[in-house]
């Protein structure tokens, strides 16, 4: 219940955020950029959790708690991804997506 703003407007913003993340994930050439794009997707869903909780069940906080949970998981996931990227860099001296195509048919 934010005065003057309906749920549709906020959901539109998060949808835009989500699709920017998808777009980045598909088109970026750098592994780090892809990781950042994933963060955008995650943020979109976190905001959705909070908003929907706020508008549908204002009396309970489950959605909010869940968003905190997601932030924690995302942090762990990012740490893991960065570790993988660093190891990859040590092997092939590159963080470009086009250099990581050996796992094919």
């Amino acid at each position, binding site marked *: 219940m934010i005065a003057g703003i309906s749920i549709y407007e906020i959901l539109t913003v998060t949808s835009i955020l989500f699709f920017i993340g*998808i777009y980045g*994930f*598909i*088109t970026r050439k750098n592994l780090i950029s*892809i990781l950042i794009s994933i963060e955008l997707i995650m943020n979109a869903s976190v905001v959705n959790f909070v908003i929907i909780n706020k508008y549908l069940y204002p009396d309970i906080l489950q959605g909010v708690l869940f968003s905190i949970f997601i932030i924690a998981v995302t942090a762990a996931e990012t740490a893991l991804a960065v570790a993988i990227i660093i190891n990859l860099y040590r092997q092939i001296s590159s963080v470009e*997506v*086009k250099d*990581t*195509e*050996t*796992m*094919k*048919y």
Partner: protein
Amino acid sequence: MNLNYTILIPLIPLAVFLLLGIFNQKIKPAISGYIGVFGLIASGILSFYTAYQYFFIYGKVDGVYQTFVEKTVWMNFTDTLHIDMGVLIDPISVMMLIVVSIVSLMVHIYSRGYMKGDDGYTRFFAYLSLFSFSIYGLVLATNLFQIYIFWELVGVSSYLLIGYYYTKTSAVAAAKKAFIVTRFADLGFLIGILIIGYYTGTYDFETLNNPEGSAILNWASTSFMGLSVITWALILIFMGGAGKSAMFPLHIWLPDAMEGPTPVSALIHAATMVVAGVYLVARLFPMYYFVEDGFALNIVAYVGAFSSLFAAVIAITQTDIKRVLAFSTMSQLGYMMLALGVSGYDGHEGVGYMASMFHLFTHAMFKALLFLGAGSVIHAVHSNYLKDMGGLRKYMPITNITFLIAALAISGIPPFAGFFSKDEILVAAFEHNKLIYYVSVFVAGLTAFYMFRIYFGIFWGKEREYKHTPHESPLSMTFPLMILALLSISTGFIPFSEFVSADKAGFETHLDYPLAAIAIAVGLIGIIVAWIFYKKENNLADKFANGFGFLYKWASNKFYFDEIYMFVTKKILFKRVAAPIAWFDKKVVDATMEGIGNKTVVTSNKIKGIQSGKVQDYALYFVSGVVVIALVFIYLWTN
């Protein structure tokens, strides 16, 4: 009376087989021979104990020998139709126990000498024990299915032993031939069993053989092509028996089976396994006799009579002594079959049944003796052929005398065992079927002739060039010869009819002097003719053979039956039936399956580019999929 111990009779040889088979390489040959012999001695003692107990202590109740059965249900089909495993003790099974025990033990002892130094010594004894287990199980079977199981087991052990010298091509071919021919016959046996099971609802011998039982009384309930189905089943079962007992026209495997070691021929192809067919008919005798007034039994009689004549004629012309003995076995088996065929049921009417079993008993003794004697000769001169033998009586006195005793026994000369049993067969044939009687008298003459032909050929006649001087075989080989010779003389005096008869009540038999005189005369004529032809080297026999011209040639080629079967299988079955089916299998069935496989490979080669290894491509596919599904849910799946 507790019969549980009888189960040990087959189980001891089985244990010996497993022991020798599993530790084949680890057991020294000398020890494995002893293990085999002692296993058989243990089984033999139990068999004799059973026989003594049965015939003299508890077997007879109110003058009739009872049938004792110990069994457990092994496999259930319906409440009444089930397959049991167990032991059945009645006069013929006990008699067979004695036959198997004596012959098998003698052959085991003999083999210790005969097979000495052979590479597969332990393997040989393992197979012999397997065979002993199977034949004991067959003899003691309580129902048709159990007998069928052991029937196949003796077939397998026969196959293994015929092909014992597996580096020899002819032995391998003979083993395969024996297995395939008997297997073909057993197909009939199996169908017969299934028909019996379907129409009578039981496999149990006791229920089937009860003359007042439903199986026999209701034989006419269903008919097929003019005959009762039960008659058909019995004919098919006889087909199995004929295959095992080498009856015409399924006899072709027996002569070739002589490729196996000689002790094996004595045990399996003379005394025990080949009589399984006779035993089977005797086991189901009440059914054969009562169903459709003995229609199936008539077939048994005529097949037996024809086989005995057919084999005797061929035996005259053969030059391999083991083959002569093989055809002689076939001829004598024909005798047993025809005796069963002309038998009645009650009291003295059942003389044929008794005579058949009596002949089975005595024949086992003297035919095993003949084979073991022949083995002893072959051991000495290293050849199977008559042309390599002659004048051996000086070198091998024991073999000579025991072989003579056996030859006299099979020729039906008193007081040797064969005379008594053959006389009973002739009496039975004379009383029931004159045609068969004349055939069997003629065969008796032929038997004496061909037996003494090889006797004189081996032990008299001109001495040949031997590579080394022939010598008498060691005691381990001559000892069984002497024991069996003793039995060939004495077993004829057993009052057999008191122990074994069709209605189990026993009856008195007396020698029928006119018939006995005819039989002896015919036998003596055969011997004298053989004496004239073969005692001294002369060309009378050749002249005689030439006189018969093409008939002689036909007989010496076994009437070309092998060639006919080869023609039928190779030219007709293989070419006209099997080849088109093989073509269909290759070009249609296989091609379809291969086509499916090939198409899969080609397609997957084409589409494997999708797996590019680029993570972002995968993400794109995934997102596109999600978008498509989302669109479907939003616009199409709206109720």
